[in-house]
């Protein structure tokens, strides 16, 4: 289904979706965040990349697994806590972030389907916004199989055509949302479709950053485990968690018990994000650490994304959103690192 929605009507559409919980980009001074909103007017679709991707909604930083408590008869009881299936809509999803969810989908599927992830995933509709202008100077989606108007993982793709949006439904979930406000939408004219094509072609040209020889990288990496490159590239790494926490594809987590009373015991078991750049991530309780230094941790990040994930799921675990580059406090640039990897291979 292809439709036209004027920008003026956009807030009315959002209002029609009152049965859904709405998330959208919201401006907070100099940055943009993805937030739950009540007022459609607060949505800012001109935002650059939100600091955190929709990952934070589907795979929240903190998820309660279960609660445990000692009953009056001194009996320990464990209660499973599953998230409520709140029908939700996320507006302004960038194509790279939608693609990223198709990658985390793979991780949370398989022999063990993750009920927490899927409850949230299945109840969420993703409304994408094509990037006519790269939302970050470090965008490189074209290098990793994406594009500024990719439809992968989206339920609807909106393309900004000046005073209106070209709205394309890509799934049943998407069509449902359009049908809830049918009168607001018009049939597109041939000129609109032309305009979309033109915008898309121009958008691709505006993406300046790219990884050279991406196709060769997985096989080159196979022989680079002991390369001195990792030492060199990680010299300034601060061991913070920005690159991984902001990454829309990174999915590593920790499980801990949070106790409100230790005797009798009462508390919650929670999952929180964790990341491979923290030194305690792999440390055994004996103190032995298989990845003891910055260089082995940078190597893990690169190899996981461009070798291991490719081996396991036949795709790069990177969608080119550029967040890790833009926000790295010391300017570690994954494109640069990968370019040096290709040089290494030649």
């Amino acid at each position, binding site marked *: 289904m292809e439709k036209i929605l004027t920008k003026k009507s956009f807030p009315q559409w959002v209002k029609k979706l009152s049965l859904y919980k709405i998330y959208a980009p919201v401006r907070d001074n100099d940055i943009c965040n993805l937030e739950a909103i009540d007022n459609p007017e607060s949505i800012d679709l001109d935002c650059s990349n939100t600091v955190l991707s929709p990952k934070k909604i589907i795979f929240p930083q903190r998820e309660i697994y279960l609660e445990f408590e000692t009953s009056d008869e001194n009996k320990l009881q464990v209660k499973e806590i599953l998230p409520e299936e709140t029908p939700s809509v996320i507006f302004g999803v960038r194509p790279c972030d939608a693609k990223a969810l198709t990658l985390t989908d793979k991780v949370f599927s398989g022999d063990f389907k993750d009920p927490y992830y899927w409850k949230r995933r299945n109840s969420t509709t993703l409304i994408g916004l094509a990037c006519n202008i790269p939302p970050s*100077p470090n965008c490189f989606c074209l290098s990793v199989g994406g594009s500024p108007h990719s439809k992968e993982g989206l339920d609807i793709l909106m393309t900004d055509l000046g005073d209106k949006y070209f709205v394309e439904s890509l799934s049943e979930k998407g069509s449902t949302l359009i049908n809830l406000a049918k009168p607001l939408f018009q049939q597109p004219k041939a000129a609109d479709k032309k305009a979309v094509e033109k915008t898309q072609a121009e958008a691709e040209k505006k993406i300046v950053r790219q990884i050279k020889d991406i196709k060769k990288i997985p096989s080159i990496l196979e022989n680079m485990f002991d390369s001195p490159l990792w030492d060199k590239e990680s010299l300034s790494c*601060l061991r913070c968690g920005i690159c991984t926490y902001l990454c829309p594809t990174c999915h590593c987590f920790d499980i801990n018990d949070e106790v409100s009373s230790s005797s009798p015991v009462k508390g919650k078991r929670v999952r929180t994000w964790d990341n491979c750049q*923290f030194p305690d991530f792999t440390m055994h309780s004996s103190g032995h650490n298989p990845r003891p230094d910055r260089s082995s941790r940078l190597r893990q990040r690169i190899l996981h994304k461009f070798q291991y994930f490719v081996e396991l799921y036949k795709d790069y675990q990177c969608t080119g959103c550029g967040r890790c580059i833009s926000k790295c406090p*010391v300017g570690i640039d994954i494109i640069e690192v990968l370019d040096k990897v290709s040089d290494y291979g030649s």
Partner: protein
Amino acid sequence: MVNLEDLKNEAHKLLKEGTVKYIIGYERGTNGLLPIPAFIKNPEDVERLIWDPTCVFNLTRFLVDEKRRKASEKEPDERPVGVIVKGCDSRALVVLLQEKFINRDDVYILGVSCEEAGVLDEKKLAKTLKGKKAKNIEFTKNDNFVVMTEDGKTEISAKEILAERCLECKANFPVIYDILLGEKVKRKSDKPFGSLEKFESLSKEERWTFWKEQLDKCIRCYACRSVCPMCYCDECVADTINFAVTADTTAEEKAQKIKWAEKSPVTSENFVYHLVRAIHLAGRCIDCGECERVCPLDIPLRLLNKKLEKEAKELFDYEVGFDPDQPSLVSSFKDEDPEDFIR
């Protein structure tokens, strides 16, 4: 402004003569104007060095890494490491020396004076340029910056794009150095704690609302801690694991490690982390502003540290980062310290 060629020459000489084992400086990176830390070993590589108002990092942070690396080496190179420091960075170094974390002999200080300028606030600059990209930035004598963009040169007043901390800087020149480049001139700052005024004038509930909103954003990436030269503890109370585990550490010792803050990024845990960090930096933070710069969620962390800097000054007449021989704020006292709050 300090002449870059002079800096390169000094660096070249130090490396050539083998006075230092390497030099920590700034070089151009690939993410816009943000430089990257440069670790220069070969004299010819000094050509990579840059010096301009984009050089925001506090490079003394890397002396902490150096110390750890050296401790793990069997036959370490005993020569000092050269490090380029601005005024604020030099005060960080003073604190590290004061706390005897770094030995004076282990570091060769190449001081560069910001003179009347300082470093840029990337976000302020982006706002002023409205989407245009800066290619080059220079400071001119009349308190302006000349910014080159694709549209040519624009002159912008320093106040508009200087980092907030530079506008409140106490000494724009290094207070400790082996070589000093540039002149010891000070930028006029009439209000050293100006940025606090707005928040101090809020009511208690407004302050709470403000801080709750800010700290609730925290995702505990610990970039603030990681970038801070003063956050050199082997184990941080925010971590729930023992890092100082050896073969002799008993299971009990490991099991009894207290979880002061959970990993969950919720109000109570985020506050424990940030309050502890603030108080641990009281009398130690020299306001290099790095924690605030690196915060991906734009939490104004500087306002926490600046507040305690102000209280240290007002309550105890304590100023941080000028004298490596002065006892630290919380390991000293005066008989006349205020006690009107005590019952």
